[in-house]
């Protein structure tokens, strides 16, 4: 167990949904993936290929149809302790001010009010939000700021594992680049295990130290990304990696998106 601390392990994990319109849909099929402790694994794949499903199974929000997911060596049947989840948009509680959103995890753990405030302020500072926004409501912030709040909320209880579902997909490119840099900086400081899914190939190559390429509910490639950080998006090797991933997609998807073929 101690040897498995911080490890996310998918073992022949499958997930099937029943839909009225399309009948049975395999969102994930015989997935084998081990995210090592302290690694930053990116899963990249087109929309509908099963990325969100992968994270929801790891977060214990849904049961597997077959196979299993284990976190810290324990099979996941409910949301495991010590994880943080950041999703695309709209998971902040709209009635809570920023600081109370960020402190939600500590509140659930029944941490006292004073300590909650201190630690929430620290998390807000770490994601580079100005202290004044702590009194704001989510709808008063820009999309980029809201995602920073969501990140602060996930970080605040000090999770060993971060699950991230296209957290920066809805923000503009310069903001996205800044958020990516800040995520890498936080990860380098804290050393969590991060499982980051995205449809954006460039984002995946920029962030990952290991890259999983997914199509149609399956893994089709598993590449290490041994580039030095901070990374240069115009660097030769960076661009080559990007093109290699794109080529893999071209081979497996033939220009069709998962949504239309699954």
């Amino acid at each position, binding site marked *: 167990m101690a040897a498995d601390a911080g490890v996310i392990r998918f073992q022949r994990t499958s997930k099937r949904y029943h839909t009225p319109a399309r009948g049975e849909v395999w969102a994930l099929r015989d997935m084998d993936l081990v995210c090592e402790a302290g690694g930053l694994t990116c899963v990249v794949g087109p929309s509908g290929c099963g990325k969100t499903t992968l994270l929801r199974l790891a977060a214990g929000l849904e049961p597997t149809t077959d196979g299993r997911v284990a976190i810290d060596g324990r099979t996941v049947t409910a949301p495991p302790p010590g994880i943080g989840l950041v999703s695309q948009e*709209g998971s902040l509680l*709209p*009635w809570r001010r920023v600081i109370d959103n960020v402190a939600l995890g500590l509140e*659930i753990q029944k941490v006292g009010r004073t300590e909650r405030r201190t630690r929430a302020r620290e998390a807000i500072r770490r994601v580079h939000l100005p202290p004044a926004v702590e009194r704001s409501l989510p*709808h008063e912030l820009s999309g980029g700021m809201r995602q920073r709040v969501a990140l602060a909320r996930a970080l605040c209880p000090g999770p060993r594992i971060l699950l991230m579902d296209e957290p920066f997909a809805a923000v503009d490119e310069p903001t996205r680049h800044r958020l990516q840099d800040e995520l890498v900086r936080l990860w380098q400081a804290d050393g969590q295990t991060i499982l980051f899914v995205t449809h954006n190939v460039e984002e995946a190559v920029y962030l990952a130290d290991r890259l999983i390429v997914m199509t149609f509910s399956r893994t089709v490639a598993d590449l290490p990304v041994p580039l030095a950080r901070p990374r240069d998006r115009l660097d030769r090797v960076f661009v080559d990696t990007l093109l290699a991933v794109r080529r893999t997609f071209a081979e497996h998807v033939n220009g069709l998106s998962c949504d239309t073929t699954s």
Partner: protein
Amino acid sequence: MTVKRFLVRLALGAVPPIAILIVWHVASVGSVVVPSIPAVVEVLAHPFRAPPTLDATSLASGALVSILRVLAGFALAAATAVPIGLLVGRSRTAMDVLQPTMAAAMVISPIAWIPVAIIVFGLSSPATALFGDEAWRYGLLDRVRFAIVAVIWLGAFFPIALNAAAGARGVREAHIESARVLGAGRRQVLAKIILPGAAPAIVTGLRVGGGIAWRVIIAAEIFPGTRGGLGYMIATAHAQASYEYAFASIIVIGAIGLALDGLLHLAAVRVSRWQPKER
């Protein structure tokens, strides 16, 4: 500019009441049924004076009795309807079992239950429950008869429960999941996500329920078999042709109703402040 606009709005809003006063005045001249405006003002100006010719208490104590009855029934309705509504909103089974009955009960006028309530509860009140035969000594407590409280409770229950159910059903799954991932169990999800998420709908239900309760109490008090309250005052005033008391009661009913709705509106604004304007 804004002051001017305010004055204009005030003037415009005053047109119908002034028109009503004029019509009232014209109608009252030489009439034995429509009381004169000064006669009604005279009654309103002495709210603590018991009507000399009427088998009724003062306007103020009538209002107090009506308010106490509504508060008792409304508090009971809120305390029972909110939990049941949340349950119906979150549990498929509870919804399948209760929703049809609640939707049907909602459209039955609570007045229809008065005879039933009187049969079930008779003349019992908190005073009879506490003091038995000595109940008559505790006039105010004895006026809050269980039969009337039950009718108010029935009238306010369904709108509150149905709104709470709709509010709980509308809570976003993403919000619930974000709390679950952070370690929240069922109770914490209820207290930290579902209750605050459903709060605006719950307050809407309270506002509708409060309005119904206030309408129902007046009707229930006019119904034979009850004593005390503004509705009773209207009924006796009509029976004994003291129409100025009936008119004064109507005005007090309107004023209290407005105040009640204003309070619940303030509560609604408070709990809904976080909701961004739809664009």
